[in-house]
């Protein structure tokens, strides 16, 4: 199921306005929500800036049953071989984002990327565009350079951290195999890959491939949230479809009680 560009624009405006009315304690790990560019231009996009706090996800991965000792060379195979039903089912569209768990003493810290993180954590731009080809939203990820001296000269010219660091930072164990290689299972989770063509910036970015988004959305739209603007409902469900793989989800409050909010 597709989303037209006017529906996308309207939903993005509503989402931005509604987030700005949320009290800070309900804004989740979203630091800022902003629309870039002119509505008329296909290069415009919605930017959600997230801060993934330092030392977060490793202990969670451990809870999910990943074998830490085999993580580097075995995580993908493990998930692929298992092919259990939980790995291939679409994620719960209403699930909350997984973040801000407590620190496990002695756990390996995978949640920072050298040269891209500071004391707050790692700042991530989640840019959502509308694809004129697939007629669905597409999620691009970039990592703004931190405002402190860089670790080495090479990183100054490499705004994008290596793929391994991005997987370690954002992708929970059960999703790693699927996001590396979507053919590993009949899943609607898209592949996380590198592109040189962020539609808004014309620069490199990681992105979640949208070729199967329409199929996935068709299944999810059977969920009835009732009363929401159609486009915003789509965008919320879409984030539930593609977001969990990279830890992006709607903050609590966006859908919990829409009454009295602007939009």
């Amino acid at each position, binding site marked *: 199921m597709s989303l037209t560009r006017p529906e996308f624009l309207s939903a993005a405006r509503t989402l931005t306005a509604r987030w700005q009315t949320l009290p800070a304690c309900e804004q989740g790990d979203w630091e800022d929500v902003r629309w870039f560019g002119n509505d008329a231009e296909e290069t415009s996009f919605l930017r959600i800036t997230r801060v993934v706090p330092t030392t977060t996800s490793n202990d969670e991965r451990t809870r999910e049953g990943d074998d830490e000792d085999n993580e580097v060379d075995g995580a993908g195979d493990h998930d692929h071989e298992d092919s259990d039903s939980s790995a291939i089912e679409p994620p719960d569209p209403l699930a909350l984002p997984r973040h801000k768990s407590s620190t496990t003493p002695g756990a390996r810290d995978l949640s920072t990327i050298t040269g891209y993180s500071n004391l707050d954590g790692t700042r991530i731009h989640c840019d959502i565009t509308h694809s004129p*080809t697939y007629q669905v939203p597409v999620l691009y990820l970039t990592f703004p350079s931190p405002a402190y001296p860089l670790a080495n000269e*090479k990183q100054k010219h490499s705004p994008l951290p290596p793929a391994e660091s991005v997987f370690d930072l954002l992708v929970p164990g059960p999703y790693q195999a699927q996001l590396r290689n979507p053919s590993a299972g009949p899943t609607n989770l898209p592949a996380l890959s590198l592109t*040189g063509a962020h539609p808004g910036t014309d620069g*490199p970015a990681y992105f979640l491939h949208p070729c*199967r988004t329409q199929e996935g959305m068709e299944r999810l739209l059977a969920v009835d949230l009732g009363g929401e603007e159609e486009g915003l409902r789509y965008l919320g469900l879409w984030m539930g479809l593609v977001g969990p793989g990279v830890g992006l989800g709607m903050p609590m409050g966006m859908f919990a009680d829409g009454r009295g909010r602007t939009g």
Partner: protein
Amino acid sequence: MSAPSSTINALQQKIWTGSLPLEIRLAASDCRTYDESDAYLIQTPRLSYLAFLLPRLHAFFAASLINPDVSAHEAWLDFEGVPLKWHYPLGLLYDLYSGVEPVHLPAPRRRTEDVGSSNIAQAGNTGIEPQPWRLTIHYSDFPGDQLIQLDGEGRAMQDSFINAVKEADFIRNGTARAVMSLSKQDSDQLWKSVQSHNLDLFNSVNTKLLHPPGTELRHVPLKLYLPTTSTTDPSATDSIPEETKAAGHIRVVQSLVPVQLASKQPQTLGTALNSVLPTIFPSRRNPLLAQPVLHGAAVPMGANLADLGRAAGYLDGFLHVAVVMLG
């Protein structure tokens, strides 16, 4: 009316033989000798990608490098300060940045020859000797904000190519099933044909993508490339961050372009351009303010778009058209 298959095949063959002379020099900042190193000269297919040259360029320049430990895939190329994107085919980069006037095709004798091989053949006999395109290869100061970082195994290039092939498939058929259902052998052969520039091998797989059973061509994969300035419209809600817009910034415009107009007439390049970029192409028949350039030629506005897609598509299935302003 569609052009006959023989015409399509002949034009495709001519486009596959199109090539550009390159003269590549090592950046002074990476060269350990005071005088610049020798230039590397090579004739390269327009349809190919610059990344494929890196192993031989590295072998040639290795002895001149300040840092002898640097890997071949850490290099990048620029033209007059504009980093050249790895995922753009060489011919598109040349049409966008070289500043060379495109070849103008003679007026067709018959309408069906709009995309006919004879036009291209004549276009190749203009008597103008092409000058080498002078590029610079660098091994330091990688512009990571503009280029994807390559890897030693070529995965980034292959991923980027396959993503584009999937998108072209989705545009043509409304689903990417034709690509997704390719066998591993076919997928490997497609990539191998791109790397080795082998038309027969390419067509053995590409035919399956262009004519999947039970589907009808809906749209033509078309990307339009417009040079832009770094200034943005002040009326914008929030301008796209300036730091992301570097020299050579290009605006890429895409739209779903049906093969037929509402009147059931075939879509031409002119009708498509007029519909997607009406202010730049106010006329469907004549290029008044800008001209569409493909494979170094100013394409006739009356060219049947579906035929053009079959005959003149790049390896990823797209018509990558540079929009060159007139006057």
